[in-house]
């Protein structure tokens, strides 16, 4: 008896030319944003970030974009790809329609600095305003602050946030009104408001009860769709609204 040797067929990956249509803005030269096309040979398993690196390395060194880890953890490379906010390092070419040009723009609603880079300061200013740190009360315990698994589960979703700004810059209210705290800041507040070890909930709820707080949310779910970490952002915002109405956390 001869054992049949099964050789798994390795899928052959073929590089194909893909057009990337990138929104360029060089502040020293341009008065407004314009589109530029770049044709790059890409494997289906390549990421959009790879395309940007190739363009910057081989075609046009002036292209500017932020990247750090390249693995969906640092939150540096949020951009609008084919009209949707995503991380360039988590978007594969095979998941996009590469028969047409793939558009890449900077995220909306924050001041554009150059090409795909925006000024993140207003975003972080809103984040700082909601006091995103533990506010304990009483004496400092001599051992760690214990928490049950159930208590942790209440706010676990929000701890996944990497502050990439995909959600906040997909929010139509944030686009027209930069004063709105935005989904990311509300998620950060939610993460501490519902933390059993924290006692600053009242303070944070008061901050989010502001004219520009949670009541500006129109429940369009853009933020939830945009989040590369899959956080249920709209749900978190609704939970903060409910906590405000019943003043019970």
């Amino acid at each position, binding site marked *: 008896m001869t054992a049949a040797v099964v050789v798994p067929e390795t899928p052959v990956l073929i590089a194909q030319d893909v057009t990337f249509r990138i929104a360029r803005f060089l502040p020293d030269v341009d008065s407004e944003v314009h589109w530029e096309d770049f044709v790059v040979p890409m494997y289906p398993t390549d990421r959009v970030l790879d395309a940007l690196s190739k363009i910057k390395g081989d075609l046009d060194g002036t292209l500017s974009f932020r990247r750090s880890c390249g693995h969906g953890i640092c939150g540096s490379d949020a951009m609008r790809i084919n009209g949707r906010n995503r991380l360039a390092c988590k978007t594969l070419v095979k998941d996009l329609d590469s028969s047409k040009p793939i558009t890449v723009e900077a995220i909306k609603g924050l001041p554009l600095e150059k090409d795909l880079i925006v000024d993140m300061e207003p975003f972080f*200013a809103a984040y*700082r*305003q909601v*006091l995103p740190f533990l506010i304990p009360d009483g004496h400092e315990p001599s051992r760690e602050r214990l928490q049950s698994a159930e208590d942790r589960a209440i706010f676990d979703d929000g701890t996944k946030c990497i502050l990439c700004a995909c959600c906040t810059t997909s929010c*139509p*209210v944030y686009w*027209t*009104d930069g*004063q709105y705290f935005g989904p990311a800041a509300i998620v950060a507040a939610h993460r501490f408001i519902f933390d059993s070890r924290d006692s600053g909930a009242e303070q944070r709820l*008061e901050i989010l*009860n*502001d*004219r*520009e*707080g949670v*009541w*500006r949310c*129109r429940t369009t779910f853009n933020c939830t769709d945009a989040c590369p970490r899959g956080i249920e952002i709209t749900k978190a915002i609704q939970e903060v*609204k409910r906590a*405000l*109405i019943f003043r019970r956390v």
Partner: protein
Amino acid sequence: MTTIEAPRSTGRNKQRSNFEMYSWLFMRISGIVLIFLVLGHLLIMNILDGGVQRINFAFVAGRWASPFWQVWDLAMLWLAMLHGGNGLRTIINDYAERDMTRFWLKSLLYVSVIFIVALGTLVIFTFDPNLG
């Protein structure tokens, strides 16, 4: 020991007010009430016995002789106007970018809401069935 400075405020409106919360709640509650009031109104006026053909001055006069229909119509007028007005207010807040545009659009909105609510209320309370 180093101290960490408290986060600096960027000068947001610091007034403590629950207005936005109550207006949000009002939208939900008035919306639910309006479903019944408006659907009931449409059913009575347009579909049930004879429908829209039977509506004339006498029909309206007969309905408004009863305090029940007066209260129904008054509630519908006030809730619909305030619900719609508040909805438009939030849309103006969302989409009017310049402060002056916002101010004038909202002024126009408030004036028309007050005018229609006042006119409607006046008609319901001072309606004279003997006019016809």
